[in-house]
């Protein structure tokens, strides 16, 4: 511990200054973890069949990214350099286990449906990516903001993909029945109705559909924002 930490001149840090806002907004659009950095694709394929599932997953990931960033940023000066990744992993695994236990107590059926994917947040590249890239070198409050921003950026895409897949695959949105062939649906496609030609597209329920939808989102985003085109 004979290290000397060079003190950089302290700059004023307001709670919601320009930098903090940028940390929150950037990952939602220009630096989105899924569509720009293409991280966390695996879970984006698996948990986007239903909007409700996607929302729960998004909340879980936001919690984990935000608090693991905060914790690692607080610990960053004490973490031994040789085992820093192991320490990060312990922090992530701890938080994910807490989320999983809480969800199992709060909503058992959803926990049962998501089961392995909640556990797999541990291996979500976004979480560890942010710890290495940001939290290890920045102050707690900003790291927390960065975590929330990246979690939200992931969650927003997840919910958009889930909304498209659920609406066209199952005819509902967040379990609210919109279009289908029984009278419970808002738009009834039984024999005599005007929408009788409509059939839910089963392709949308299959995991491959998530890639198509994400691909289209990336396409739309890049065509609107020329800055992103040369990034990768």
């Amino acid at each position, binding site marked *: 511990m004979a290290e000397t930490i060079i003190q950089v001149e302290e700059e004023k840090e307001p709670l919601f200054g320009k930098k903090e806002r940028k940390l929150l907004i950037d990952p939602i659009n220009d630096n989105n973890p899924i569509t720009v950095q293409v991280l966390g694709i695996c879970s984006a394929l698996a948990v986007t069949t239903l909007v409700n599932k996607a929302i729960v997953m998004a909340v879980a990931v936001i919690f984990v990214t935000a608090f693991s960033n905060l914790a690692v940023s607080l610990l960053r000066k004490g973490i031994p*350099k040789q085992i820093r990744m192991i320490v990060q992993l312990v922090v992530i695994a*701890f938080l994910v286990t807490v989320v999983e236990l809480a969800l*199992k107590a709060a909503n058992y059926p959803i926990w049962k449906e998501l089961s392995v994917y909640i556990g797999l947040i541990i291996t979500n590249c976004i979480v560890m990516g942010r710890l290495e890239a940001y939290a290890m070198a920045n102050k707690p409050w900003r790291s927390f903001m960065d975590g929330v921003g990246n979690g939200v950026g992931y969650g927003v895409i997840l919910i958009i993909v889930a909304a498209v897949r659920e609406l066209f695959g199952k005819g509902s949105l967040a379990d609210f029945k919109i279009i289908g062939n029984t009278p419970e649906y808002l738009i009834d496609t039984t024999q005599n109705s005007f929408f009788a030609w409509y059939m839910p597209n089963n392709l949308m329920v299959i995991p491959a559909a998530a890639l198509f939808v994400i691909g289209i989102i990336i396409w739309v985003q890049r065509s609107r924002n020329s800055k992103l085109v040369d990034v990768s």
Partner: protein
Amino acid sequence: MQSNNYVTFYTVVMTLIVSVVLAVIVSGLKPVHDDNEAVFKKREVFKAVKDYLGADLDKMSDKEVLALFEKSMKQVVIDANGKPVEGVKAENIDMAKEDKKPAADRQYPVFIYEGDKGTYYLVAVRGNGLWDKIWSTVALKDDLNTIAGTSFGHVGETPGLGAEITDNPSFPKQFQGKTIYDGNEFVSVSVVKGGIKIPAHQVDAITGATITSYGVTEMFERGLRVYLPYFESLKK
């Protein structure tokens, strides 16, 4: 670089803190988890007879589910020869564990639902899908031949294909009214591709889910056969 002592100390303290905190949370939430699991299992059983409950299962609160289960579900456990076993409750039988025992030692749950619309015999079957286990609760009318309803479950079938056995309500619905006996001979119910030829014993398969559909056929054939001696003893 930090010294080895510091690294060791850091690791030990960190591991201790994390494990103690997690242990406290796990043991603190255990009762809630157990209650949730019990209600979930009972809902799964009720799903097979949900058309005969006189109420919407999805809208029933956990308390109502438990009360209804207590009031109108009789539980019987049978052994591999179809003889009732004393002192075991059907709700405590874990089919996943029974699966691992030798066939002669297995025990099977039977739930007898006595509702306003009649008596139903609910039995559990378990088999293999494409990727992992699938299972089903089959409700038979009191003739012990006609299927009144089914519910399915699976570990990891493909969404949109095999997972349609649970996600698409029209699949379990097809089983309603099918019979498992042809005269006195047990024929079970099979899932067939390319059109139903024997309407009394066949249901239509799911497109793109051949293996899961075969799995369901095999599961019904083998799973229901176990209960036949018990059914025979009831009929006498």
